[in-house]
């Protein structure tokens, strides 16, 4: 057989592969991933996905459509309540005030209480660039990129959209945003989280609040599910917030079914007469020690 029948295609293929190799090598040298928008460094929709479902803890409150199980905060995809996903809703949310879609999303992360969706509580979401989550600006950019790729459905976000995001971020990151945070009148002293576990059990908190992965002694009729799920609450909320929730349950009532009683107040009883100060301090320490997984 004529060797060139194999030789010519093989040679041709080799030439094309060498060319492709040089292109990939040169791109690597510049630190760019092959294909994808030219966001600098590690900012990418993939990184955003990791952060959303991981250290950003967004998933603990927000689901995206059918993904995730959190109910606490607005679903970022579509569900019974929302017919459009967030990347569409955001365009009209504050349109009358001249907010672009990107600006609205950025504001919801840096200053969540500036606009709270109807049916959800104010003060529930804290600025994410602050503790306890304290994502860096770049991480937040990645998360927004993830959302704007329609939660991973698209490959990349157009450059000018990302530019708008970065612009808005600069405004919010540099400005001293006044948020209606709970400013404690006094700091909560450090308590003993282990003791706090027993306080939780004694006070029968587990009869209304579920904590994944923890076993308590029998409570009675209800076994969690009456009040918000407290799994990993320590990662999401500050010490002061937890202290307030115990001391004054009506200050912030989490949105959701059945958390409010008929009188419009929280169903959670008050423990002013039944809890000692020490127990309170330890309980708060215990709650604050509850870390989410992942």
């Amino acid at each position, binding site marked *: 057989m004529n060797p060139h029948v194999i030789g010519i295609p093989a040679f*041709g293929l080799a030439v094309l592969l060498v060319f492709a190799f040089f*292109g990939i090598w*040169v791109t690597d040298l510049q630190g760019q991933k092959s294909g994808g928008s*030219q966001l600098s460094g590690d900012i990418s929709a993939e990184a955003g996905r990791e952060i959303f479902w991981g250290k950003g803890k967004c998933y603990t409150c927000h689901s995206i459509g059918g993904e995730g199980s959190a109910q606490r905060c607005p679903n970022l995809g579509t569900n019974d309540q929302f017919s459009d996903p967030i990347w569409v809703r955001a365009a009209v949310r504050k349109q009358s005030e001249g907010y672009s879609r990107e600006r609205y999303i950025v504001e919801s992360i840096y200053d969540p209480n500036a606009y709270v969706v109807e049916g959800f509580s104010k003060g529930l979401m804290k600025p994410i660039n602050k503790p306890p989550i304290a994502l860096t600006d770049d991480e937040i950019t990645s998360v927004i990129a993830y959302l704007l790729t329609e939660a991973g459905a698209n490959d990349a976000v157009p450059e000018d959209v990302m530019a708008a995001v970065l612009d808005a971020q600069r405004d919010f990151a540099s400005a001293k945003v006044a948020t209606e945070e709970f400013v404690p009148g006094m700091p909560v002293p450090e308590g003993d989280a282990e003791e706090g576990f027993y306080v939780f059990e004694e006070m029968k908190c587990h009869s209304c609040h579920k904590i994944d992965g923890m076993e308590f002694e029998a409570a009675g009729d209800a076994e969690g599910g009456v009040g918000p799920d407290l799994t990993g609450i320590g990662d999401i909320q500050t010490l002061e917030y937890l202290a307030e929730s115990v001391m004054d349950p009506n200050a912030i009532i989490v949105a959701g079914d059945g958390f409010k009683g008929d009188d419009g107040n929280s169903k959670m009883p008050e423990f002013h007469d039944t809890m000692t100060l020490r127990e309170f301090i330890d309980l708060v320490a215990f709650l604050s020690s509850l870390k989410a997984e992942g």
Partner: protein
Amino acid sequence: MGDGSRSVFSRGGVVALFGLLACFVAAPVLAQDVVGEAQYRSIGDLDSRMIMWVVAELHLMFGAFVLGVPIFAIIVEIIGIQTGDKRYDDMAHEFTKLLSAAFATTAALGGLLGFLLFGLYPQFMGHLTGVFHGSMYVYALLFFGETFSLYIYYYSWDRLADRKWVHVAVGGALNFFGLAIVLVANSWASYMMSPVGLDPDTLAFNGDTWGALINPLWLPLNVHRLLANIVFGGFVVAAYSAVRFLVTAKNDEERAHYDWMGYVGNFVGILALIPLPFAGYYLGREVYSVSPVMGNNMMGGAFSWTFILQALLIAMIFLAANYYFWTSMDRIQGSNRYAGSIKWMLFLLLAAFAVWMTPHNLPLSAAEQIRIGGQYHPVLKYLGLMPAKNAVVNLIILVTFANFLIYRRANQGETVPVSQQGQSPKLLIPIVSAMVLAYPLYYGFYLLGLDPAELDLPAEKASLFRVPAYLLFIEVMVAVLACVAALYDRGRLAQMVLLGLTGILVTGVLGVYGFEILEKANPFLRNIAVVQVLLMICGILVALVIDIFEFRNAETLGDIRWGDAPARSQYALILQCLAIVMLMGLMGFIRSGLREDWHIYGVLRDTSAQSWTPTNATMTITVGFITLVFVSWIGVLFWIAGLSDKKEQSAQGGEGA
């Protein structure tokens, strides 16, 4: 009550009818949102931009082939008429057969491209059609001319065998229509980069179609693409011959035929390749004129590495071309006299490529940065700048040309002295040289009188303009002396001196001087490049004219043993073809990507999901894929064209035997 109820009923009916009519009227109004305003569409989940890229590039490649081949087919045919050698005529016929096979595919791809554009980018195409629809009708009509002339040219080949000049005229018509077609289409592409006829405030188009045709980048794009089409056609034909030589040739006669055809294809390609870098530089410079930001982006920004890849491909092409000459020396009796020159030419070529491929933004590791003391190596950084690149590309061209001259004379033995060749050298050498040297001479005087203010330079810079002018004068003088020397039988010495001087002036003197101009009078750099081109033209054309007469009627030491070429040389031709196809894809990427996220630069933004600039990695993979598709496809087409061959051959064989 009957009347009342009837009238109520009829009133109700009328109201209902009105309501229904209103719906019909309202429906289009309501539907307007859905039908008229679509900005982008997509085919399912597919990436529209990628689809466009592949289809458009394939159309351009096939188009380049279909437009480039008629140019040299007609020239080869004319050579066949002049020399009376039937081989040339047969070869032109074979070129044209390949052409007609590819033509229908090109047109079909064009149709597909058009529909994709209108379907996937309706708003953009609406805008472009608004500007260019007049020329679009003309474009379509021109295809009738092309079709008629192509098929008449091909099918009437034997019939018009005794009325050759009629046939050539048809070929001329074919070329005319082809040229017109590419000129019209080029204007749309160049308009997207340099739009004209716009109202400065609203950016609305208020010009006319033909004014929009003559936009700033149209002419440079035309020149560059025309030359590139010839190169493309030549190299594809050469690769076709190489494949047939290696795979399908059954006997010595066929091998000789395809060896020779490969040589001609390669020769045509190289001939057009020589001025191509100048055309490219012209286009690049005009991009800077249109927008310094676009220009800076092209050379110093996002596409600077792409140009290094381009340098890599061009190095492949030139090295393959020279390699083809060298490996072919074996089949030329008497070539061993010149074998010693190979290493010097190779050395010069490689040194030139080393400079050309040195990037401006040299990748450095941290340790290197610290030891070098900054981002740039203090010596190598100069190699990354334009004057260095301009200087060495000319050297590459000169060496290739010198190689070609050697190839021409490789099997020539004793020459007939020019002084004994009668009147024709005494007439033609001076006349042709005068024609060649006229413009460079004029340009030298132009530079001496150039007012720096025309280039936005202060008046004292005029002294800088003198050096290039003097170099032009020196070259012209030496060229004249060379002609005189040739007429007195010192032609070969004259050639060496002339080409050597050209090399020194263009690469050595102007290479270094270019840096000074870069520093002190940047806008003048373009004129330096023009001077370099003119010096090259002087040197090459005068040396060529002298060469023709030096070796006219010289004794051949033996026939060139066509068919005896080593397989390596044929693979070099295949490499050339692949490299030029990839190069076309790469340059298309640059042209398209320079617009960044604009459909029409500065006027119509690209807000689609794929408005980001792909990386070089994506580009090489995509262009590699397109190359694979193109080469396979055109290979199949050539095979189809060859299906009619076998019957002819066996018929001929039957008759002839």
